[in-house]
């Protein structure tokens, strides 16, 4: 009911602001390096107000075609991204890369479905999408204020087992499929031409890192990422940074301290509930959305680290 009210209010506002001719709000995109455009998301939880449009999304343009990197947090944002791309380049979209399964990165997929467009993801992305879709559809209705259908989930037809190169004409993107980290289906993209690493949610800046894969695995992948000779990196949440790899130090520090605190709690025979109240809390002031995500990070870390010695 509240969601419906918001929808009505939003529709009315948009109608008033944009007039009947322009149905989509313009997406704010910034060219952070030649041919690389990023829309920076908000430091917010997904809700009916922001409609889940909270992640960094964008595209890389080559001479021949465009690779979309994460399609948006809602079908509408996907359409807005598509329009924004068309306004900035004459070359067509040939690839849609989903960096992982989370809704704020994949809900715009449907807008790009067309002949000649390949969807690309981690080899575990199809399974993750299939397993989560029913739950995500229900959650969208309840939490985001719009209705999704199975058609909004466009799984990758090309999957990355380990590494893959995509030629966009005049520039080649190097895709890396990572082991379980932020999720179990994380993909990063490196553009050697501009020295840009699109790290997506493997890198959180400002927004507390969220562990939905493997804490220990993520710490391992951070070591691999640090070796990428990038000049700048694009996080999944937060501003584009130009001090790579030192910019990932804060995330690494948080994850390491979280692991240390959870291991101590397990060693002291504390329960998950007790650990959720204490682990990680020394870093509370270092991050935004700490209270929203730290406890869930502790619980998933706790469940995994309980089995660590075996």
């Amino acid at each position, binding site marked *: *009911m*509240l969601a419906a*009210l*918001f929808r009505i209010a939003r529709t009315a506002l948009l109608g008033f602001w944009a007039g009947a001719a322009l149905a989509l709000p313009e997406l704010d995109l910034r060219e952070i390096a030649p041919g690389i455009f990023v829309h920076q998301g908000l430091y*917010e*939880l*997904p*809700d009916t*107000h922001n409609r889940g449009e909270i992640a960094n999304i964008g595209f890389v343009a080559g001479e021949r075609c465009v690779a979309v990197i994460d399609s948006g947090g809602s079908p509408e944002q996907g359409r807005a991204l598509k329009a924004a791309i068309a306004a900035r380049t004459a070359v067509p979209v040939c690839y849609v890369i989903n960096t992982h399964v*989370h*809704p*704020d990165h994949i809900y715009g997929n449907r807008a790009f479905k067309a002949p000649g467009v390949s969807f690309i993801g981690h080899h575990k992305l*199809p*399974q993750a*999408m*299939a*397993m*989560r*879709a*029913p*739950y*995500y559809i*229900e*959650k969208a209705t*309840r*939490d985001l204020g719009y209705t999704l259908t*199975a058609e909004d*989930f466009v*799984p990758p037809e090309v999957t990355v087992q380990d590494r893959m190169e995509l030629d966009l004409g005049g520039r080649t993107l190097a895709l890396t499929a990572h082991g*379980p980290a932020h*999720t*179990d289906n994380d993909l990063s993209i490196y553009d050697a031409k501009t020295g840009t690493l699109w790290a997506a949610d493997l890198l959180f800046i400002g927004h507390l890192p*969220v562990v*939905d*894969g*493997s804490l220990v*695995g993520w710490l391992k992948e951070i070591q691999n990422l640090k070796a990428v000779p990038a000049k700048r990196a694009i996080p999944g949440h937060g501003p584009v940074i130009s001090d790579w790899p030192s910019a990932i130090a804060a995330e690494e520090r948080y994850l390491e301290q979280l692991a240390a605190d959870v291991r101590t709690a397990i060693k002291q*025979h504390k*329960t*998950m*509930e007790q650990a*959720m109240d204490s682990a990680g809390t020394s870093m509370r002031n270092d991050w935004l959305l700490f209270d929203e*995500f730290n*406890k*869930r990070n502790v*619980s*998933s870390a706790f*469940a*995994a680290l*309980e*089995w660590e010695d*075996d």
Partner: protein
Amino acid sequence: MQAGIIPRTLFVLLGLAASWTAFAEAQEEGTWKNALQAKFFGDKPIEEGNAVVELTAPYRAEDPALVPIQIAGKIPQTPEKYIKHITLIIDNNPVPFAASFDLTPASGKADLAMRVRINAYTHVRAIAETNDGKLYMNKVFVKASGGCSAPIGADLDAAMARLGKMKFRLDTDKAALGQPNPVQLLISHPNITGLQMDQISRLVKPAHYVEEVKLSFNGAPVMTAKTDIAVSADPNFRFYFVPDKAGELKAEIRDNTGKTFTASQTITE
């Protein structure tokens, strides 16, 4: 959300939201009253409150795949009067029956803790049956969190690789004889729900979950649990037992595919 001037209309909306939530919670009793209560307990009267059994769960589930809950028996487990059975129901889960536990005076305390999957905004209820056949219920309302995970394990492959492994955890090396001793049993099992509908691909795994957990001490039953898909991956149970002497604490597990696993722990005085 950005801090700033909050228009009056937003307060109205927030007020609406608050009353809506209360309304929704009241409505939630429908599933229980109209279907679940009769299904599981027939027309037997159930006393509601926390005098005999108390359920603790977080109001907001941080991770819907791992919601820690505790059930506390409020009466001592004596041969004269004890809680013999506890049923855990999660109203709005696809399978509301989460688990049931047979307990004995040898349990010492009818205290249990575990982690469950919660699929929706729902009441969770613990119904205790005492040895005189009376029923007592305590319920709490849980909101599945807005996070970004789904009620499935994140690292399924790791869980499959350890399938059937078990660990006991005791607070001390030596047991306190004649008293309730806390124990934790960790079972490595992916507990796949099989409910993730195949809307997109053919890659969904069939249900595979722990169905029965039998705990005994020197051959005498301590606790027997029937469990369903609401129990989180890598089931983790905390319970009590009263050792009368040194001996062997044993866990026997059976999953829905018929696989059985056993583990035991030597208890010293």
